[in-house]
């Protein structure tokens, strides 16, 4: 259990750093969605299914969609 959680946290850290580093903003958004998704799984492991649901629906689905639409209207690559 502790092994799975630490693996997930490590993956989450990688995703967070990647979201900061990527120059391609679409990839950065996907990395940020990965962070949200793993956070939702961690909330579930911490026995907070209500928060996990909200995090998965808002963080991974809706925020990603809004960011993608925003990129469509602006530039895809960071200058």
């Amino acid at each position, binding site marked *: 259990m502790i092994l799975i959680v630490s693996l997930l946290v490590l993956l989450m850290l990688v995703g967070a750093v990647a979201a900061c580093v990527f120059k391609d903003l679409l990839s950065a958004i996907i990395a940020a969605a990965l962070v949200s998704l793993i956070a939702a799984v961690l909330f579930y492991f911490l026995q907070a*299914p*209500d928060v*996990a*649901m*909200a995090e998965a*629906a*808002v963080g991974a*689905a*809706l925020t990603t*969609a*809004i960011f993608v*639409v*925003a990129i469509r*209207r602006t530039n895809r690559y960071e200058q």
Partner: protein
Amino acid sequence: MRKIISVLLLSIVAVGIYLSVSHIPFGAPKTKVGGHYVEQGMEETGAANMVTSVVVIYRGFDTLGEVTVLFIAAVGLAAVLGIAGQQGFPREPASFVLRNACVVIFPLILLCGTYIFAHGHLTPGGGFQGGVVIASAFVLSYLGGRERRISKRLFGSVESLAGLVFVTTGLIGLAVGGYFLSRILPNGRPYSLLSAGIIPIIYIAIGFKVGSELAGIIDNLIEETK
């Protein structure tokens, strides 16, 4: 130089947070009110889901504030983006697979969202989660059926009606029970669908309100304003 200063400032903040948090015992009860919710919550409200009893009954007024914040965000976005004449996306239809998959999946997601907020007092989840799931169904429908639009008037009236139901329930509670959102309906048998007094009414209203607000935000963003 700027980087060094920012790293220095960040480390000062980190040390401050560490010093202030490290003296609080982790997980220990700090007030008695949490224990009261855990032990008495189910008897008092009839809701099997403890989180719901706190969100809707004990902190119902705060929930009204949260819904209002979301409403103001949606209105602000509509005011900023909806000024210029709207044209919609360039009409390139979605591929066959995407369009037909959306037709199949869209009602299922709607059903899932409705289930989440209708069973908010029994199972994990509630009005906010169910509403967001419903809004994500509309995102999918915008991906699949690009040429179709749901009328803004419908979103607006559903949203206003849901808000009205919430506030009216609270005001009836004020008239009958003496305070806003007082429990005017009987608790009923625990673990059954029609239980927990006013919680299902409030959560269904919140579900519709959040769903229509967020779907309206997506709708406003997706339309081109040129």
